[in-house]
């Protein structure tokens, strides 16, 4: 997990997790709560009420000054210029080959200021890649890594909006989906982003690292019984049901967004690194594609397990028991000729177990 036994980093909320009895495990170089009591209970709490996650390990990298928007446009697969201030967009940073350096969210924060929220495991690699593209494009904007100074909490689930509204100032207008607002919760200045990684409505809340503990306590007080602290275990089962990719599993430098089924986050024609390769890939049609699998039994298809199909083998990238769909579900790369409904097998400990290729997501919330 961590490189060469380097000490694990701790988020500003580490002592709160420990005091709450969390099971703390290494993740991307950080010591993070995987669960506080039960992954399934935390998962269900998010689907039925609300959950509170510490995701402060994630990185924040800002592009600032003249040329910031142009550099963002050169880096990011989705459109930047067409996103108005206050908008959040999901997209990828791609190599010239189209392979994914990272999958990130972009915040349109100012007329010459954008913020990328990036995966913890990729902070250094993203920063390096941004500097490389900056040099290539002769951009003069600043690249500022604000990861250490920034904490990130996620409050997710059908009760999340109401809990947050109790703490917001009078006259607060909540941001629409995929938008953010700079506001206060109680007396704490926050950036409130109507985004998430669970398949539920809710917010991701950016705050100065020094105030993260106060925000955690404030949200827990406001949420009471309706808000359950949830760890990375539930975050993973929730995102798998929603079929959101996880970098290092569905995405890496050898897999591109076309293969991963993320075409809608690729804005062809606007110019960005990797566009030509992705265009060619999309036109020719990829040989492999990310598919969803539902297993017949309750055994879990783990990453690296073989998918056997009449058109050739594939490989599982993520798999779990899906607590809400109550099925064993998996994501994996398989020959692109496979269609939803195809009967396949996954090899689990030497046995071929039947499964079906399905359209994703496995779970979609009902919008109120």
């Amino acid at each position: 997990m961590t490189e060469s036994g380097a000490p694990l980093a701790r988020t500003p909320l580490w002592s709160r997790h420990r005091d709450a009895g969390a099971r703390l495990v290494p993740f991307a170089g950080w010591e993070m709560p995987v669960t506080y009591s039960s992954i399934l209970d935390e998962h269900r709490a998010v689907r039925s009420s609300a959950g509170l996650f510490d995701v402060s390990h994630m990185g924040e990298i800002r592009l600032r000054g003249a040329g910031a928007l142009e550099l963002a446009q050169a880096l990011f697969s989705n459109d930047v210029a067409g996103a108005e201030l206050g908008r959040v967009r999901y997209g990828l940073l791609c190599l010239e080959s189209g392979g994914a350096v990272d999958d990130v969210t972009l915040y349109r924060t100012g007329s010459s200021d954008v913020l990328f929220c990036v995966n913890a495991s990729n902070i250094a690699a993203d920063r390096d890649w941004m500097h490389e593209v900056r040099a290539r494009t002769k951009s003069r904007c600043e690249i500022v890594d604000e990861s250490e100074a920034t904490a990130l909490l996620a409050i997710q689930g059908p009760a999340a909006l109401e809990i947050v509204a109790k703490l917001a100032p009078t006259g607060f207008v909540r941001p629409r989906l995929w938008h953010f607002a700079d506001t206060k919760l109680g007396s704490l200045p926050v950036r409130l982003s109507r985004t998430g990684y669970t398949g539920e409505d809710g917010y991701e809340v950016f705050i100065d690292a020094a105030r993260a503990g106060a925000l955690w306590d404030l949200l827990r007080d406001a949420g009471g019984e309706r808000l359950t602290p949830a760890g990375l275990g539930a975050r993973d089962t929730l995102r798998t049901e929603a079929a959101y990719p996880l970098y290092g599993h569905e995405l890496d430098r050898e897999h591109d967004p076309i293969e991963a089924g993320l075409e809608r986050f690729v804005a062809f024609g606007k110019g960005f690194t990797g566009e030509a390769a992705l265009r060619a890939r999309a036109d020719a049609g990829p040989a492999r594609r990310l598919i969803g699998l539902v297993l017949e039994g309750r055994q879990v298809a783990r990453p690296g397990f073989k998918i056997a199909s009449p058109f050739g083998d594939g490989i599982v990238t993520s798999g779990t028991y899906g607590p809400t769909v109550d099925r064993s579900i998996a994501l994996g790369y398989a020959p692109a000729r496979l269609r939803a409904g195809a009967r396949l097998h996954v090899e689990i400990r030497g046995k071929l177990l039947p499964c079906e290729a399905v359209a994703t997501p496995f779970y979609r919330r009902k919008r109120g």
Partner: protein
Amino acid sequence: MADREYEIPDDCQFTESDEWVRVDGTLVRVGITDYAQSELNDIVFVELPEAGRQLEKGDAFGVVESVKAVSDLLAPLTGEIAEVHGRLSEHPEWLNEDPYGRGWIIAINPEDLEAVDGLMSAVEYRAHVKARAGK
């Protein structure tokens, strides 16, 4: 690591791989300990053996899977599988809820019932759990 007291009943003996055994007449009933179920977290699948199978001590006789992990079940004793708790297939959560009761997995007809005494006592097992939890 959650600071909790694990349930370790005095009427059981234990393996280093966190199975418990309890003598029940001429059979020994086998399951996984409270510590084991807690480490695995929510168990979602149990692969059970067939009754009648002959086991050597240390043989893998089944698998438990949780959301996060997979673990082999290892035979605590040599003997024949006399009973299999088939309902666990439908209720893997019993392993979490009641590991020493409804969560029993198999009963073995042991070759040598006295071999039970060679396993860890509750006191020894508590020390074994503590040693690992302290790491």
